[in-house]
């Protein structure tokens, strides 16, 4: 049995009087791709932010490679190097070229010599298919290209886990594919990934597990086929119906919960 790379144990988070995450537990094995879906305001982003410590949890524990990263004496900066994060709106460093965006973590955080860092950064840019855009500034790249640079920037730190928070939802439809393609390739290469996304085609093909969250709890989880075709809860089925319709990519016979296929 593979060891868990990430163990989320009974975590809770509240903002003021609002409980955002309620006693969430979730284990992720090395190489797994987990897709998280759920309605807006459910706490999906908060969950990801808790994992890379951008937000502190109130109760519970998070273990990365068996080590508790939520205790006081753990260095946040150290943990974040091992947890890559990709944001909905890319958040590239505006004043740096694509290459420098990918390099800066290597030179300033990992203190790698410049020539070595440059080589590694170019390698990551090649990995996302953007070696020829190395000297472009974010403002000179399309949204899809910016997001791929952002992925390369996270990959450069050699993370143990990659977190994606709706990486394609700020993109024009025709640019979504190139980003999903990169993510698919990463999954194939064995990267451990947690993705909040409503791209159901991607989820069905790539995810080992889909997690349906609502109101700060995990309502249901399971392999794509199970969740799609045999959801245990009516809420899961309703939600899946809604987003497949919304994203309008699937033929009628593929609609979730329809057992006739």
């Amino acid at each position, binding site marked *: 049995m593979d060891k868990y790379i990430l163990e989320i144990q009974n975590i809770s988070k509240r903002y003021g009087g609002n409980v955002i995450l309620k006693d969430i537990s979730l284990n992720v094995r090395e190489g797994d791709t987990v897709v998280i879906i759920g309605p807006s305001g459910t706490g999906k982003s908060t969950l990801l932010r808790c994992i890379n410590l*951008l937000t502190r949890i109130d109760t519970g524990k998070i273990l990365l490679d068996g080590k508790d990263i939520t205790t006081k004496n753990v260095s946040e900066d150290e943990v974040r190097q091992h947890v*890559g994060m990709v*944001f909905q*709106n890319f958040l590239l460093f505006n*004043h740096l070229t694509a290459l420098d965006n990918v390099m*800066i973590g290597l030179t300033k*955080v990992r203190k790698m010599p410049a020539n070595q860092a440059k080589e590694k950064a170019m390698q990551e840019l090649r990995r996302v298919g953007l070696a020829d855009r190395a000297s472009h500034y974010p403002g000179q790249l399309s949204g899809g290209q910016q997001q791929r640079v952002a992925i390369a920037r996270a990959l450069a730190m050699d993370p143990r886990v990659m977190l994606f928070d709706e990486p394609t939802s700020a993109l024009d439809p025709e640019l979504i594919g190139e980003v999903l393609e990169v993510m698919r390739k990463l999954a194939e290469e064995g990267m451990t990934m947690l993705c909040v996304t409503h791209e159901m085609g991607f989820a069905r093909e790539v995810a080992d597990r889909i997690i349906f969250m609502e109101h700060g709890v995990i309502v249901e989880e399971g392999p794509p086929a199970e969740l799609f075709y045999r959801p245990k809860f009516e809420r899961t089925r309703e939600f899946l119906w809604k987003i497949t319709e919304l994203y309008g990519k699937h033929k009628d016979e593929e609609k979730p919960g329809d057992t006739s296929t």
Partner: protein
Amino acid sequence: MLSQIPTYILSGMAITIAVTLVALPMGFVLGLTFALLRVYGGKFLSAIMAAYSTIMRGVPPLVLLFVLYFIISGVINLTPFWAGSLALGVVSSGYQLEIIRGALCSVGSTQMTAARAIGMSRAKAVRYIILPQALRLIIPSWSNEASVVLKDSSLVSALGVAEITRKSQLIGASTYKFLLAFLTAALIYFILVFLTNRLLDYVERKTRIPGFSHHSTL
């Protein structure tokens, strides 16, 4: 006789420029430090910096100049030139604090989040991500502040420093050609301000980030 007026006043130009070159960078160093404390320094320091800026901007520069002059000259023995220039630098720091604070906020917390997400400490994020963008943003407002300081350097004439304004008063009094003297001074100030603004426009264009348009309301 008449040609001696511009020559005499022009001889004060070096002092005017010197006062500006002391006050402006000093205001920048103080303003930058205080702005960083204001934005990232925590509640207590932030409140102190807010108070500092409010006070500095709430008093006429000439009054502040006298107050600071008498404080400074009570502590150490400085020439009026140095005391006046340093005092002007302090006056300017209040304004520069606000300019830089605005830029830091307008670069925004999301750039900070992105930097933290790759494992940068706050200090590194400020140094490598926030400041390089914020300093570009301040150039237009800073250009304006540079002309304010250049013009306010005339205030040190009240301390007897022989810069352009003081020399105009002197030559006006001795020749009874006050209007001509002050018109000459006005022209020199105008040219200096004009050149300063052009220079900073150039710096702004040179440091502009390709493809990036920042719709700030600075």
